[in-house]
C-alpha cells in the first residue's frame, strides 16, 4: 500500500477544495461507494495503486464537514464512516497477532477491488451505450406487414404476463376483507350438480331445506349460502322442466317434487 504514512495535516489544498465542493452536493451520490469512488479520483492515480488509508481520511473528512454543515447524511454513509474509521486504525496500528479476522491490508485490498470493479462497470456501461443501437444507428425492416394474411391463430403470453397474472391473484388475496369467505360458499354450480343427482328420489313433495348438503345445515353462514344456491338451482331445474316447486304462503316452506314428463 503506497503512502500509508501520509499525514493528516499534509492533505493538499486541492484535495480540501475537492472535498468541500463535494459537500455541497451530497444528494448527487448514489451511496457511500459512489462517493468513495469520486473521492478516489482526487488521488489521480490508477485505481489499483490507490491509497485506501488516504481515501479513508478523505471520506471521514467529508463526513465531518457534512456534520458541521448540519447536512443530513443517510445511515449507510455513517455506517461506512464507522467502518472506515475502524479500517484506518487497523492500517495504522501494527497487526495484533492475537486478533481474529482479516487484516487491515486485506480489508483495504477488498475495498480497492470494489472501487475498481464499480469503475470498470461504469466504463463498460458507457462503452455499451456508445455502441450503435437498433432504432438509432441501424434499423430493422420498416415494413413487415406486407405479408400478413390471417391464416392460423396461435396464442402467446410472456413470462411477464404470467407473473403479473399470478401477482394479481395473490395480491387480491392479501386484501382479505374484500373477498368473500369462500369456505362458506356453496356455489350454484355445486347445488345444481347435487340437485340433478337428487331429484330422482323426490317423488313426493319435500321441503327445500331437506335438500341441503350434509354439514351445511347447522352453521348459519353456510346454511344461508346453501339455501340460496339450492333454491336457485331448483328454479333452474323447474325451468328445464325436471322439477315442480310450490310455496303455500309467504314465508311458508318451499316444497319440491320431481316432474315426470319433461315439458316440450
Amino acid at each position, binding site marked *: 500500500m503506497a503512502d500509508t504514512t501520509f499525514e493528516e495535516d499534509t492533505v493538499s489544498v486541492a484535495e480540501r477544495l475537492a472535498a468541500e465542493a463535494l459537500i455541497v452536493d451530497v444528494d448527487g451520490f448514489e451511496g457511500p461507494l459512489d462517493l468513495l469512488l469520486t473521492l478516489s479520483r482526487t488521488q489521480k492515480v490508477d485505481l489499483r495503486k490507490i491509497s485506501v488509508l488516504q481515501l479513508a481520511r478523505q471520506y471521514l473528512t467529508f463526513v465531518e464537514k457534512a456534520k458541521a454543515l448540519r447536512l443530513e447524511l443517510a445511515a449507510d454513509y455513517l455506517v461506512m464512516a464507522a467502518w472506515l474509521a475502524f479500517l484506518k486504525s487497523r492500517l495504522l496500528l501494527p497487526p495484533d497477532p492475537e486478533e481474529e479476522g482479516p487484516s487491515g491490508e486485506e480489508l483495504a485490498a477488498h475495498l480497492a477491488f470494489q472501487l475498481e470493479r464499480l469503475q470498470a462497470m461504469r466504463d463498460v456501461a458507457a462503452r455499451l451505450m456508445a455502441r450503435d443501437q437498433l432504432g438509432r444507428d441501424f434499423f430493422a425492416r420498416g*415494413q413487415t406487414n406486407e405479408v400478413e394474411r*390471417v391464416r*392460423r391463430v396461435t*396464442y*402467446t*403470453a410472456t413470462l411477464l*404476463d*404470467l407473473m403479473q397474472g*399470478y401477482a394479481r391473484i395473490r395480491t387480491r388475496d392479501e386484501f382479505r376483507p374484500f373477498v368473500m369467505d369462500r369456505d362458506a360458499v356453496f356455489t350454484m354450480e355445486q347445488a345444481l350438480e347435487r340437485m340433478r343427482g337428487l331429484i330422482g328420489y323426490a317423488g313426493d313433495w319435500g321441503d327445500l331445506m331437506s335438500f341441503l348438503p350434509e354439514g351445511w345445515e347447522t352453521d348459519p353462514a353456510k346454511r344461508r349460502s346453501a339455501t340460496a344456491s339450492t333454491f336457485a338451482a331448483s328454479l333452474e331445474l323447474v325451468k328445464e322442466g325436471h322439477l315442480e316447486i310450490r310455496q303455500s304462503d309467504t314465508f311458508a316452506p318451499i316444497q319440491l317434487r320431481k316432474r315426470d314428463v319433461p315439458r316440450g
Partner: protein
Amino acid sequence: MAEQERMIEAVLFATSEPITLKELESRMPHGCDAGEAMVHLRKRYEGRGVQVVRVGDGYAMRTAADLGFLMQKETVEVRKLSRAAIETLAIIAYHQPVTRAEIEEIRGVSVSRGTVDQLLELEWIRFGRRKMTPGRPVTFVVTQGFLDHFGLENARDLPGLKELRAAGLLENRPPPGTMPLLGDGEDEEESTEGQSELFED
C-alpha cells in the same frame, strides 16, 4: 455512385412507406443523384429474393412474388392469451400438481372448460397424477413445452412473490399488519416434491 446506391438501399429497407426520388435526395448529402443510384440498385436486385419495385411515384422493396409461399408462416395471427387463461396457467405453474377445484379456490371464480381446453391444446399443461383425496380428482401440471415457451429451466425457477414484489411487479403492497400469504421465495422452493402442500394452510 456505389456509396449513393448503398444509401438508397438502406433508406428503402428501413422506411415503411414507398419513397419518392425527391424524398430520397432530400435525405442524402447535397449533390447526390437518387435517380441514377436507383437504376443501379434496381439492376443489382434483379432476379433476387427481394425486388425494388415502383409503387405510384415512389419506390419500395418487396419480396419476390414467386417466393410468397415462404411467407406462409408470417401469416400466423398471434393473439394474447385471455386474462383467465393466463391466471389459470400461472396457478398451475406455481402450484402444480393442482386440481380444478384448487384453481377455482385460488382464483375465486370457476374455471371454464374452454380455458383448460385451450391450455391443453397449446400443450402448455397436461394431466398429472390423480390426487389421493376423496373423489381422486385429476390434477394439472405444466409441460416441457411450457418451460420452452417461457424460457424456464424448470417450474421452480419462477420467481416467488417476494421477488415479484422486489421487481416491481406487484403494484399493491399488503395493508400493514397483514401476514404475507404464501409465495415467500424460500418457502416455495423448499417444497421439492410438488408445491401441493401449499394448500394445506
